[in-house]
């Protein structure tokens, strides 16, 4: 690490003594290790999608044919916004401003909850159209469309398309839900006067998780919705 970096780096670290070893306090190190393990979990799910999709020579559904891309693009934007509000909450408590912390955490909770809400709405719509984890439901609107234009709708690969789509986005949504629950806990702790400029470990650690979930969605949005 260079000296030029050190000043910024010290400013970015909470003002309580770091523990030996990693140079960061244990909660944060533990969260990073957990995130590393979560990378492997998503590797199993996203990797399966990549392997199944790019090992087959059969046509895959074109982007936008089945999924509602504009709505999801908005949802992506929403999740990015909630990531910004989370980092604003972190900056607020690092400056010792608990009121702004509460405001920004609340914004983040709202953003995350809306994201999950929109995703549930999208699922309901998709299943209504006939897109299910086992492919296009027989007799549904999508099945008729796909029979007419098998290339556009990837008729032959619909089964694994549905399987991978619902599993990946479903487990991402589960992660977002867990994040919202944890953040609600952070919010109530802040309401009761928790966290200070001297100790804001909880905010930073849950923030790391939240940004990671955002990061996964950025990847998922591109490779599932746009490619």
């Amino acid at each position, binding site marked *: *690490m260079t000296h030029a*970096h050190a000043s*910024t*780096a010290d*400013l*970015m*670290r909470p*003002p309580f003594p770091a523990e030996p070893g*990693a*140079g*960061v306090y244990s909660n944060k*190190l533990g969260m*990073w*290790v957990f*995130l*590393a*393990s979560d*990378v*492997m979990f998503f*590797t199993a799910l996203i*990797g399966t999608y*990549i*392997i199944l999709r*790019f*090992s087959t020579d059969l046509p895959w559904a074109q*982007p*936008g044919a089945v999924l509602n*891309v504009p709505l999801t*693009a908005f949802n*992506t*934007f929403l999740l*990015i*916004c909630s*990531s*910004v509000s*989370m*980092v*604003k909450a972190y*900056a607020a408590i*690092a*400056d*010792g401003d608990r009121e702004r912390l509460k405001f920004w955490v609340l914004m983040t909770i709202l953003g995350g909850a809306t994201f999950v809400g929109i995703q549930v709405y999208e699922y309901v719509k998709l299943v209504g159209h006939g897109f299910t984890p086992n492919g296009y439901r027989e007799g549904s609107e999508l099945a008729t469309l796909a029979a007419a234009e098998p290339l556009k709708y990837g008729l032959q690969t619909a089964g694994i398309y549905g399987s991978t789509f619902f599993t990946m986005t479903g487990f991402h949504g589960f992660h977002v839900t867990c994040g919202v629950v944890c953040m609600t806990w952070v919010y109530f702790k802040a309401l009761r006067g928790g966290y200070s*400029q001297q100790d804001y470990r909880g905010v930073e650690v849950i*923030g*790391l998780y939240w*940004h*990671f979930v*955002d*990061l996964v969605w*950025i*990847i998922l*949005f*591109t*490779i599932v919705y*746009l*490619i």
Partner: protein
Amino acid sequence: METTARKHPNYVAIWVYLAVLTAIEVGVAFISHFPKPVLMLILVGLAIWKALLVALYFMHLKFERWRLRTVFIVPLPLAVILVLAAITEKLW
């Protein structure tokens, strides 16, 4: 410490950056007429760019020591190894 306000990166600028990149992604995917492999390369590149922004600024990896960055970097090659090995089945 003398001042209570500490130096933070400009998070709003990163936010605008991410929003613009997302708009470009959707635009490239639906309006442009690149051949499919080029399009995929561009889209994946943009996604990695966005993910890096989140990791470096929001997750503060830019300001951490290498020993902490390593924790997050270690699983990435393993993920690549798994996917690449399994996908070579197609070549056979």
